[in-house]
């Protein structure tokens, strides 16, 4: 909940406005509002914001013959995306760097099109209410980054590798590689409690897949839907039709589709190339509610469970029941924990040229890079095959994987010519308590029972083992902090290493975050800048960057008395050597 309050102060508004609905003089602005967050905003304020911002954006983009990217007001700012008649706006406080808020909006839009296909089509297929639930979910997913720093860099949350036996990471990578022995598996990632353990996918793809974690938790926690003895064929459908448990009073009759995120091309950082291309839409299970020990208040429940701490306990409690009943078609019961991985299958939209991108642009190091060269990559052009796979698996048992053919979902037409065409893909998911294995597979993977079995069996035991290890070690908590604060951002893998806790810290920590955000924006628009030291009365921050990384360092301790006049004995100028020295033990090499 704390997360939510923090999040709320971070982004104050988000809306999607469809200008095509408001053409004539008499058309009310509200007709064009597809989604508005926060939803409880009075309608006249919604209309004011949408009407004014959309109007001004249009006027400015006509003057400049280019879409508006950012609108700033005295007390807030809005990242804007305009595409055709649609306009997305994400508002936040003025402290967030421009580059961060714009990235975030792109992520959000991509998340949507990743799971739902092109925007226009989605709004034709699904009801506005359904999609509103999805938008809400995507929003909350993106809001729950761990710290302010994560938001500045819009980076993936990863497990803290300094407290984990490197062998475990290796093991995770090997599991992924093993899965790739099946030619239908393109790439995969392993997540643990909302954090990435290992991934073969590009960061922006990974961040989309990560929404799964949230989703699958919710699925499990809604026993109803699973209770129905159904063939998996129906399951995917069922899931999307089942009421979300999130509304305060769950109404089983109300269809509650799930929201998921969107993709972007691994190679290209600009995300919009994907989102407007034809793609596949698919259903996801409804919002979670964890009627769980960790009392999640109903209203925010669909803001998905907090990352990380996302209760392992919750799952256990909830899924137990689910498991027993839903799996009765499987042989045997759950032996111990009753944990289940329900893998809703999503077909996701992947750019046509995914393989090419992966092939040449991914600069992941070592093994990852190797793993990325997808095999069997003849992903069919824009063929629209829609398939869903549902894999139910039970720990310690032979999982049974069921396939659902969702071919009857209306295909997405190529309504937008811009951007590379999207390709339909399928996501396979295997869950062991807090651990999730997600694989991007060829759409016809599900047809190949042998392949499914092979993947399932080859990874099952290792996943269980990995989960057990991670569970015990991950409890370690934050390690001892040194007399310094640092943040190390890997631009390629989009990950952040820092010794800064997520909690609001003292003056120096705030000052570190402020300097970091300023320097990060400076780096982002000054290509040649390599190193910087900035100092105010309280603290000096050193920042350095290369093509692949950015590092920020602050030496704690009382600021030495100084006059600000140039003085080569000034301690601020010894920061670079201190940083080089100190950060070595965090695996950061600045030499």
């Amino acid at each position, binding site marked *: 909940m704390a997360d939510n309050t923090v999040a709320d102060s971070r982004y104050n508004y988000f809306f999607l406005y469809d200008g095509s609905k408001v053409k004539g003089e008499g058309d009310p602005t509200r007709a064009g509002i597809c989604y508005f967050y926060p939803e409880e905003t009075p309608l006249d304020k919604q209309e004011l914001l949408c009407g004014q911002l959309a109007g001004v954006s249009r006027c400015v983009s006509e003057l400049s013959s280019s879409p508006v990217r950012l609108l*700033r007001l005295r007390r807030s700012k809005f990242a804007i995306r305009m595409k055709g008649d649609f306009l997305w706006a994400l508002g936040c406080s003025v402290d967030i760097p421009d580059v961060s808020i714009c990235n975030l909006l792109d992520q959000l839009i991509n998340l949507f099109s990743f799971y739902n296909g092109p925007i226009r089509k989605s709004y034709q297929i699904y009801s506005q209410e359904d999609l509103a639930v999805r938008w809400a979910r995507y929003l909350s997913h993106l809001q729950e980054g761990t710290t302010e720093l994560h938001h500045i860099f819009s980076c993936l949350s990863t497990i803290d590798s300094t407290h984990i036996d490197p062998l475990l990471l290796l093991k995770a990578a090997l599991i992924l590689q093993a899965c790739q022995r099946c030619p239908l598996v393109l790439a995969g990632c392993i997540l643990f409690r909302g954090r990435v353990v290992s991934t073969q996918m590009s960061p922006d793809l990974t961040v989309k897949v990560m929404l799964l974690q949230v989703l699958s938790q919710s699925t499990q926690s809604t026993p109803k839907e699973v209770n129905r003895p159904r063939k998996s064929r129906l399951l995917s459908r069922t899931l999307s039709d089942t009421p979300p448990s999130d509304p305060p009073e769950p109404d089983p009759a109300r269809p509650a589709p799930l929201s998921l995120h969107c993709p972007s091309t691994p190679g290209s950082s600009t995300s919009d190339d994907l989102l407007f291309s034809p793609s596949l839409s698919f259903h996801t299970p409804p919002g979670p509610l964890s009627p769980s020990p960790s009392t999640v208040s109903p209203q925010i429940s669909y803001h998905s469970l907090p990352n990380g701490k996302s209760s392992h306990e919750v799952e256990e409690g909830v899924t137990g029941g689910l498991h027993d009943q839903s799996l009765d078609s499987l042989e045997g019961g759950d032996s111990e924990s009753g944990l289940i991985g329900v893998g809703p299958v999503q077909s996701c939209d992947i750019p046509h040229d995914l393989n090419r991108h992966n092939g040449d642009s991914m600069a992941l190091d070592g093994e990852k890079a190797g793993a990325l060269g997808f095999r069997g990559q003849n992903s069919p052009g824009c063929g629209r095959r829609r398939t869903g796979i549902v894999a139910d698996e039970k720990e310690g048992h032979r999982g049974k994987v069921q396939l659902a053919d969702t071919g009857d979902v209306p295909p997405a037409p190529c309504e937008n010519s811009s951007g590379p065409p999207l390709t339909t893909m399928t996501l396979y998911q295997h869950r062991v308590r807090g651990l999730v294995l997600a694989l991007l597979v060829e759409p016809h993977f599900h047809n190949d029972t042998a392949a499914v079995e092979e993947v399932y069996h080859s990874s099952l035991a290792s996943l269980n083992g990995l989960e057990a290890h991670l569970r015990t070690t991950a409890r370690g908590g934050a390690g001892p902090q040194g007399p310094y604060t640092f943040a190390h951002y890997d631009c390629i893998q989009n990950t952040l290493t820092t010794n800064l806790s997520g909690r609001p810290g003292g003056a120096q920590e705030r000052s570190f975050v402020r300097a970091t955000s300023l320097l990060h924006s400076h780096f982002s628009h000054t290509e040649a800048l390599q190193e910087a030291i900035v100092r105010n009365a309280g603290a000096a921050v050193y920042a350095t960057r290369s093509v692949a990384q950015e590092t920020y360092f602050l030496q704690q301790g009382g600021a030495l008395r100084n006059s600000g006049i140039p003085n080569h004995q000034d301690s601020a100028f010894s920061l670079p050597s201190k940083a080089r020295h100190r950060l070595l033990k965090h695996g950061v090499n600045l030499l």
Partner: protein
Amino acid sequence: MKCLLIASESAEVLFYWTDPEFEQNIQEQYGASQEEGEKPPAFEDCINTLFAPIIISCSTMVDRLGDGYTSFSTENNHSYVLHQFEECLYIAVNGDGEEGEEDLRRKIYVMKKMIEVLFGVVTLSSPLLRKELRPQDTEQRTRLWKHLQSLLETYSRLKEQDQSFLVEAVERLIHPTLCEQCIEFLERSLVQQINSSVERAGEEVLHAFILVHTKLLAFYSSRNASTLTSSDLLALIIMVQNMYPSNIDLEDCAPEDVENTSAPDIFYTPEPSPTNRDSGTDGDSVSSGRYEESRPEEGSHGGRGTPIFQFVDPDIQMAEDSLQTLECPPHDPSTPSRVFLEVMLKEGCYPMMPHSMYCLPLWPGITLVLLTKIPKSNLAMSIYVFLEAFAKLEKRLSEGLEGSAARGQTSIQDLRNKLDKFIRAVGTVDIQTSALQSVWTEFKSRAFIRGGHGFNRGLVPWCRGMKTQLCGVYRQCFMAENGVGGGGPQRLSPSLQDRALIMVQEKLIDWKDFLLVKSRRNITMVSYLEEFPGLIHFIYIDRTAGQMIAPSLNITDRATSELGKGPLAHFIKGKIWGLVNTSRLYLQKGYSTVTLRDGDYFFCYFLWFENETGYKLEVKELPILPDDSAPIGMLAMDYYRKLLRYYSKNHQGEVVKCYELLTVHLGVIPVEYILQHCSQLARKLWEPSRIPLL
């Protein structure tokens, strides 16, 4: 692709400036929607139509959300910056990537500063300013707008070319002996002689200074004059440059620039301006009533008589043949410009007090500037005091603090007596006060009924009315008079001006060529190279005095400069300009020390405080300003003055000085050496900057 627009809340264009690309862009857009054969609408109308939705949306947001736009940016990196001053909305646009949002914001503030210098206290009344900026008479409007446009262009040119306008501090010619001689000459001979002459028509020279291009050779202020602020001095230099544009390198300029530089000659063509047709004989009768909306019969006078701009940029004159047919008399060099400058006296600070500025061109590139106090200028102070009193009263009333407003009874009674006296006094000196008189009577009858119970919210509009009337009287006294044909403009007699000119010419004739060269090679990097190997450039600024020193950076295609020539020199110049912007960005967020390794270069920026003896004072937490705060600098809003005031709070009774140093080194020099250089430079440069202004 650049544009600057001032609009009223009702989306009326009060002023615009665009570069040719922007104009073309707008016309193309408009042309597209234009029917075949139809005459294209006036450019002003196009720009009005295109910007109106933005302007209206802006005021809607302010009204309904209490939050206005500050900037827009588009995917192709066009920037729009918006700022509202009172009821005027300024919008600056850039579409060619040459200016960032900071630059645009600065431009807006500079524009506002120039308007304040030209219109003075009138800017405090939005309705009056609106009329002032947009005279109904098309001719007049065109002339005024041309003038403002050329001021803006002059500023932009200086900011691009001149380091002193880059960092917004005055650059002095470093030649202590000559400088001292000149100051002495200005004091003992020139100013004394003028001020004791009978031909001075009641004016008194307060400040006299000699500019060589944009650089200050000597500056003298008379004993009883208040200090001229850096902000005002910089604004005046822009005006002088606008009148007598000087290219940095006369002999190196491109053909079109040659025309430019020869342009000042026009001023010597003896073409008297006989009739002042636009002002005519009715100037005296320009009544304050034209500002009173409720008096339409007098309002018909509107749109006449604001020819405070005697000088119009000659280039524009030549270029616009359309204008030549307009009756715009060529600049009469002996007519002063009316400028409104800040005056600091023991009794207090009076912004925007009227002065006359005489620019006497000694030779092309060298100008003598005299600033005089004009008769009746004490009227301006009284009016300002009344304005302030009404503004305070209005504020208290609208905040619902009737009680405290009433408590201020004594001062209000005081105000009443003084204002009564003032109106009587003003009435005797040929100034129309009937409108002021009637509003004041109305005010009194409402306010002073039943023992002061009249002080309530209902009085707020009357406070505003009084302010408008006072501004109207002020305008009559100090702006209309200039163009009045009747008694001839108030000024030092032309023959007195001629004598002054000749005196200074005689004094400086031997130095003339030296000065022109010196202004381009004020100090040179060569003299620092031996001591500071690897140093490429530096700028040292004394923010307390508002002065800077930097090696010359003249980049022209033919002459080899300190930086060499060609692309590399331009590249480094670009880096320096960028560094100044970056350092401001960090200073705005409270960082007073910044070092950057950028490509092959290493940049340092330091800001520190000293007391008078050079003792370094401890650094203090600097204020963190919002992104849309006034630009950091001295020209438009004096950030450093506020900074010094803020810092001095803990140093009562001590003179606090603020310095800045920016350096550019080769990146291969070890950082320890670079820092050593910086501290040595700061020590070495401390001395020259102590040459007193006075």
